């Protein structure tokens, strides 16, 4: 088999949607299997590393996730989004590891009616971009990074899935095996805690300018 024909097949696969690549992998295409690893290595590692907060463990769990994924590929339903399916495996793998390490996973009971509105007024205004604010933005990124790490694991998961992976609520609910209302509540609480931490770090309400401290 020539390298050029292999490259041709690989580039044809590149154009396919994730579910189609998964079907090709299921039919025995090694290129498709490789592509699945290349496509999902970063997002899977990002989710797991955020959850377990240990780079070395995250590498092992990412490997476990891909092994589980390939072994269970015959059970994948192409009508379902592949990303949701693999994130569900990754999430379960990370949660199992946290349980083994006895990391507390419980969150206060959900009361959808008792949750206040999203604390948007506390957000730094990021609507404008100016070069002089670059340093401040880097600092903000560091504060955000620490603030996300300080959240409870389920809140970290919803933040990563919603804002890094840009998934909709239904997909997040399917991945975390939670009711839709609970996902929304977790997201709301996560944002409230983030707003508090940002405020404590000096990134105050709307009068604060982008990336700058008051």
């Amino acid at each position, binding site marked *: 088999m020539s390298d050029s024909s292999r490259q041709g097949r690989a580039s044809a696969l590149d154009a396919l949607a994730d579910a189609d690549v998964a079907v090709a992998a299921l039919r025995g295409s090694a290129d498709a299997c490789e592509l699945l690893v290349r496509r999902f290595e970063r997002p899977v590692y990002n989710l797991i590393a955020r959850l377990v907060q240990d780079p070395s463990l995250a590498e092992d769990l990412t490997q476990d996730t891909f092994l589980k994924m390939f072994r269970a590929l015959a059970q994948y339903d192409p009508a379902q989004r592949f990303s949701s399916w693999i994130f569900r495996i990754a999430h379960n793998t990370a949660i199992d590891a946290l349980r083994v390490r006895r990391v507390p996973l419980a969150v206060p009971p959900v009361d959808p009616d008792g949750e206040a509105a999203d604390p948007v007024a506390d957000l730094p205004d*990021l609507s404008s971009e100016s070069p002089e604010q670059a340093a401040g933005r880097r600092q903000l990124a560091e504060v955000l990074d620490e603030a996300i790490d300080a959240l409870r694991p389920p809140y970290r998961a919803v933040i990563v899935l919603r804002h890094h992976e840009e998934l909709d609520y239904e997909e997040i609910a399917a991945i975390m095996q939670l009711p839709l209302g609970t996902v929304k509540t977790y997201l709301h609480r996560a944002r409230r805690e983030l707003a508090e931490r940002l405020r404590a770090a000096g990134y105050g309400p709307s009068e604060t300018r982008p990336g700058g401290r008051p």
Partner: protein
Amino acid sequence: MARTPADSHDPVERAWHALLRRAPRREPPPYLQARLLAATRASWPAPGEVAAVPDGRGELVVTAGVLAGAAALTLAPVLVVAALFVFDAGIVVEGVARTCVWLVSWLSTGVSVWDVLMRAGRVAAAAMTSPAGTLLLLGGTLTAWLALVGLSRLLPVERETVDA
């Protein structure tokens, strides 16, 4: 309709998304991809074993298979009992034992019995959780319930007979 944060019409959602997408991602080390490829290669589906992609027709076939299996399992004891009326008990017991031995050796030809049982269990579970399987299960439950209702009508008569 559910939306991704980037598509959302909600200004609060968009503001949070604008902020949180700036949070750094956890990046995998450069060697991880090679490690994942090497570690998972043995688990990649082989070109020879074309796995069935689930579809409606496959589901019906699986359901029909489970139904036929269930019917065979139900009829087997009836046939054994019926045979007792025709043949000598010793011959029937010997026949049943020979059939069991043949079945086990047939199932284990080239494969592990446990593997066969595991696959059969998976297929049965898939069929039971499919819409057609659920319908059959509900039908069976309803029939059993009706049978129980019928029996409960007969039981008082039986009790009266015993009391008498």
